[in-house]
């Protein structure tokens, strides 16, 4: 097989991996702070894609330029979901309520989109659409490349925010010890709302970027929901860096894998590797416990 094709696939994988990493990170952040598994993260990506689509159709806003606005809208949307619905179900008993709630929210959002936009695929144009960069004989799609850069930038900004701002420190404190957070006067409910909002905003940034080279349809969230769970489980739930690297592993696996085994077996390969990773991780864990 031609090495050039493999390298090309690798580069493509890294770029799509950026999107997976981002969605995985958003899921992980919500889990890390609130200890809830958010089953509608994929649908949140879908909502943000439709928002990008609407901004483009009615305001003529380029998807890349729309990113700040989409992030803001998604923050508000997420914060609202959290404070109106999810927060109320947490206080009851255990995880089940949140699990059902977020799962149903996902179905609800998908079907609302179906009702509003029908099941047709929708696309938008960006200034970089259909442009290709040639580097060392590789063809790099410009919208994917710009998306990748923007996602890296967003990730760095989020880390700086968590590390240095007051809100970021409060988020970290709450995730590490909720009781400790309460006795130091952190309003944990407010932090939960902010975190969910930030999680939705991160997913929104990914969604807007995705819109520049991909199409949206009501059940598109399934693709990214499942992918983000794989990413997070590979990297370790609650471990933000793990999710980040998991995203790239998944992206590379998909593209390189599909050039080797053929596109039809792409998903099979992904899940086989995923299961292998889980088995290996579990064995390592058992060994560590024994050792």
């Amino acid at each position, binding site marked *: 097989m031609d090495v050039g094709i493999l390298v090309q696939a690798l580069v493509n994988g890294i770029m799509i991996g950026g999107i997976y990493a981002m969605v995985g990170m958003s899921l992980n952040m919500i889990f890390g702070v609130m200890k809830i598994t958010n089953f509608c993260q994929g649908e949140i990506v879908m909502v943000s894609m439709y928002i990008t689509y609407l901004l483009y159709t009615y305001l003529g806003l380029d998807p890349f330029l729309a990113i700040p606005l989409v992030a803001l809208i998604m923050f508000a949307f997420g914060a609202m979901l959290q404070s109106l619905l999810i927060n109320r179900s947490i206080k009851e008993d255990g995880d089940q309520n949140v699990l059902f709630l977020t799962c149903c929210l996902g179905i609800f959002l998908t079907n609302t989109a179906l009702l509003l936009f029908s099941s047709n695929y929708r696309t938008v144009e960006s200034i970089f659409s259909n442009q290709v960069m040639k580097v060392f004989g590789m063809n790099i799609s410009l919208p994917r490349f710009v998306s990748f850069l923007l996602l890296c930038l967003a990730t760095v900004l989020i880390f700086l925010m968590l590390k240095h701002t007051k809100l970021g*420190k*409060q988020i*970290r*404190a709450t995730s*590490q*010890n909720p*009781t*400790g*957070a*309460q*006795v*130091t*006067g*952190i*309003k944990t409910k407010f932090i939960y709302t902010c975190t969910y909002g930030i999680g939705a905003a991160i997913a929104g940034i990914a969604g807007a970027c995705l819109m520049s080279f991909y199409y949206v349809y009501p059940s598109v969230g399934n693709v990214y929901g499942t992918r983000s769970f794989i990413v997070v489980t590979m990297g370790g739930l609650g471990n933000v860096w793990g999710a980040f690297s998991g995203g790239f592993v998944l992206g590379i696996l998909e593209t390189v894998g599909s050039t080797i085994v053929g596109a039809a077996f792409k998903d099979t390969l992904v899940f086989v590797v995923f299961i292998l990773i889980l088995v290996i991780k579990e064995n390592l864990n058992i060994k560590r416990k024994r050792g």
Partner: protein
Amino acid sequence: MGNAFFKASGLNVKYGDIQVLWDVSFEAEKGEIIALVGSNGAGKSTSVKTVAGLIRHTSGTILFDEKEIPGGNARAAIDAGIILVPEGRQLFPQMTVYENLEMGACSKTAESRKKETLEKVFDWFPKLKERKNQMAGTLSGGEQQMVAFSRGMMGLPRMLIMDEPSLGLAPNIVDDIFRIARQVAEETGLTILLVEQDVRKALRLANRGYVLENGVVNITGTAEELSNNEEVKKAYLGF
């Protein structure tokens, strides 16, 4: 009869259907050190958690400096000046000592005077200054308790509640912390509410004490009275 600086009266608390506090009352004057003692499960921790707003009481009132503290609102208690150093320390393990202390200064006044307070804290515990960039989770138990106490002090409390500070720690470290607590109480008029299983130690530090048993205040008196009380001696001091 005038109201004390701090007064909790007739606190009733339930966990679900199970009542754990029955009409518990205790009070403290400004600058006083009060000990709540009793065996495991007597309701000491629940009492102070209620005062600190972590648990909501079903009836009773908490008065602090002539203002009523609402139940179940930790931030309101903190803003009034009641700060809890919780049982088990509850630090942020993956944050540095410095960041942990920083988190303690949450009210506006506390935040604006962060630097001064921090200097004081490092004066009390030079070890914390050495380790300020170390993750709190990597400290020894004693050092963690120093951080927990200091984090509480960073919030500029008017009443500090210490819940089981000696649990699982070497005696000399506990003595250090108690010595500093007493010094601060004498110098600044800080009121201290101490919850302890180690009755002997608690009565050595405190001015007065309350003995709780099964969610009810059984015996109260000055530290000296309690130390000489036959019942207390038999049950807690091992005479």
